């Protein structure tokens, strides 16, 4: 294969089979954004430092800027575009929106997917479990607090509980 000729692979993307051709040096991040036009996956450094490009590869969070597109052949990739359930938001998305866990929204896709993987592993994480799971994702807007609260709210709802945001977290103490 010539270095400038495109590679073609097939993999599962957000539950659907997909085939894509791309320059073989491209990262999964670049393939998603540039060759599949899925710009929901963001980047903050493209050096594996900030967690902003996190997607799920076979269910596990990976930094898509450090994964070669070629390494995804026949594997399962989930991006933020695959979170919503039809026309309804995923409970994590619902909780992030309700609590203001997304401010500028740039790191949000990565936090959602990392939290999605956490909840798949541990449906009842405590605050420390959440902090550990999200410690590789940087957010400059929220101070992480609304993100923790949103993950806890979504976890409760996913467990079938009738949970609502605490008044104090939305209004503070008065």
């Amino acid at each position: 294969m010539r270095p400038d000729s495109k590679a073609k692979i097939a993999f599962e993307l957000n539950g659907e089979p997909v085939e894509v051709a791309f320059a073989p040096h491209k990262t999964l991040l670049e393939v998603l954004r540039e060759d599949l036009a899925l710009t929901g996956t963001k980047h903050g450094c493209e050096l594996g430092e900030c967690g902003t490009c996190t997607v799920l590869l076979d269910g596990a969070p990976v930094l898509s800027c450090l994964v070669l597109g070629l390494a995804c052949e026949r594997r399962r990739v989930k991006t933020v575009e695959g979170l919503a359930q039809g026309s309804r938001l995923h409970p994590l998305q619902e909780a992030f929106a309700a609590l203001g866990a997304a401010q500028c929204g740039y790191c949000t896709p990565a936090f959602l997917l990392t939290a999605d993987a956490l909840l798949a592993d541990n449906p009842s994480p405590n605050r420390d479990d959440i902090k550990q799971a999200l410690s590789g994702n940087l957010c400059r807007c929220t101070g992480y607090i609304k993100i923790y609260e949103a993950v806890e709210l979504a976890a409760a709802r996913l467990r079938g509980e009738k949970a609502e945001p605490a008044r104090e977290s939305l209004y503070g103490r008065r």
Partner: protein
Amino acid sequence: MADGKRRKVGRSEGGSTTPGGPSNRPLVQPSHDFRVVGKALRKVDATAKVLGVTKFADDLSLPRMLYCKLLRSPHPHARIVRIDAARALTLPGVKAVLTGKDLPIPFGILPVSQDEHALALDKARFVGDPVAGVAAVSEEVATAALDLIAVEYEPLRPIRDHLDAVEHPEPRIHDYGDHGNLHKLINLEFGDVEAGFAEAELVREDLLFFEGNTHLPMEQHAAVAEWSPDGKLTLWSSTQTPHYVHRALAKVLELPPARVRVIATTNGGAFGGKSDPFSHEIVVAKLAMLTGRPVKITLTREEVFYCHRGRHPTLMWVKTGVKKDGAITAMHFKSLLDGGGYGSYGVASTYYTGALQTVTHHVPRYKFQGARAFTNKPPCGPKRGHGTPQPRFALEVHFDKIAEQLGIDPADFRLKHLVPPHSLTANWLRIGSMGLAECIRKVVAGSGWKERYRKLPYGQGVGLACSSYITGAGLPIYWNAMPHSGVQLKCDRGGGVTVFCGSTEIGQGSDSVLAIIVAEVLGLDPFDIAVVAADTDLTPVDLGSYSSRVTLMTGNAAIQAAERARDLIARHAAPKLEAPVERITFVGGRVFDAASPERGISFAEAVQLAEAAAGTVGTVGSYTPAAGAGKYRGAGVGPSPAYSYSACVALVDVDPATGIVRVPKIWIAHDVGRSINAAAVMGQIEGSIYMGLGEALMEEMAYRGNRNVVHKIPSLLEYKSPTTLEMCDVITYVVEDPDPNGPFGAKECGQGPLLPVPPAVANAVYDAVGVRIDEVPITPEKVFKALRRKEKGEEPRFGPLGFPDLPWPEPTRVAPPWEGGDGRAGEGGRGREKAVGVTAGRRR
């Protein structure tokens, strides 16, 4: 009158909406009247953000788009002898190369600092200064082309920092400035401070240093330019200030402003770092004009560090005289800022390091001397709190030491001698509502301060600090008499309303503020309102998302536009409802007679009546702040329609063996005037605490001073910022002391709560282990060194040791209000010096 008799000011002096607008609205309405305002609402853009469909600048892609890369100087200070781009142009796929001579017109955010070129013209002023730009068919080709551009540099002695700049007036980095490499020198005196010190029972001096740090938005700056052969330029950019970018593009590219369109894409974090017009924006625009193809640039993370415009490293000296009960008799404050290679907002930043010392506690006589140095580093500018976190750190640590010397609990000290609401300060700032006492009481009670202060075991401590911040700068960046914010409103016969405004969404929730306010006035749901923002072709000017101005200024403009629409619709609905127009009420999507609410029509029907009778239903609103009270040179920085207030208690855990400081918890109380969106207020406060914590403990722009002034750590991994594992718990108290100038009483909350965090942490470290760290960030090695000094019986402190002598100009002397002045320079307001600059001609 030197004891500080305070002048009260009237309640109706701030701000005006356009003449001819409805003036009968009650400035502050009781909260039970609100149906939308003050609730915890989902932001209007939240769903798009959690779906990942919000389009940020780098998400844009246009057909035939080229990619731009910038060649940057490897030298901190060098003359450019020769640039040869011929070889780069021969590389297949390269479409154009630009160098400094292609863009010779200078620009800069401030009219007094037009000192930047899109590409260095004859000189590079920091490592990373752009010197050439390439457009090519791919980023790879553009990057390869950079290696083919030959630049011959003649290195000059670099100026490493502010002290180096003081010692070395030559070689000059710029050929303008007040003295050698000192860009700006300020000397202001409000009353006779020496007489004040003579009256004091304790006079204390302190030296402090605040290291520079950067915004670190998660989104790297990006821009896309498109040129149409009919002479129109469009630029999409991650900018907080599309209006100023619009002006800079028109100037440098010599295009009629009417042919330039700037669209600010939603910013992926900004914090002040996207407030300047930037080299890369101008370069892609010029490349699009040259090639006839769209051109895009996305900065690498390393390049974002070179754009910088972050917190100025600031050396400070403060001297305060107090009576035994803590009453201040006089204060003298000096600051020296390390400005980096260009002016940016630096003149304003320098004034800000002296402006707000007077707005929390009464200072009857005040002297401020401020200086900014040019140095060969990325330019500093406005970061969250713009120029005020540094002096606030100095002041609150200084107050902690004074309280200890007086034997007064620092919380009690701060509850005394507060600036009264609706008063003028020594430097002629007009204070409106002032909820600081309530803030202090909240955090003192909530944190168990009285049970903890000086009572915790060795290694644990609590510290307290207060602060205040402006709600929008009182003056525009360039002198003009036009509104600071404009809103247009269109009511559709289907019942929808579209609001057009130049304000820019940077994650703070400005789009939602517009929707909420219009919905409140017109009795609609915020999701009935469509928001069109930040597009210079489509939206009226808003000056930008900086200085915490948007909620107040666009909010007031939106109220005016919505009230005009409400009045127009009511006039034409009244006959149908057989009710007098003043009883027509807008609630819940209905329009009805307040006397018989069951008889009503839908909002859409009411709009149709108005449209049938009067034509298309559209209104405008605008907002201009009132002129400041001060009329002296320099009085343009500090005045604001309203001041927010904060108080903070930090709990720290210090490991004496390593010097590592951990902050498990912070209590913050913030006087926001009135919450427009309660959930967004919480997010702004918590985010401010987070950023303040990072500045307190770890964030710093570090340079290899002895090795060519290279940035040590231009990466997200090495520039330490708090992760989930460092972030503390936050207990937030929202205090609402409505300000007559705020929309429904609202004041800012996005910057102010950052300010008290660094001093609260520093004061808590002292409570924990008895050493003073008079410098942020409070890193383990500083604590460790101070503890070693304490063990050896030396001064238990880490911090700066001196403040250099500077060639200060003669002071501008302005009598404080209680000494009979009128806000002008010259004793007693006799007008020795006339008001100049942006304040001229604005006397009310």
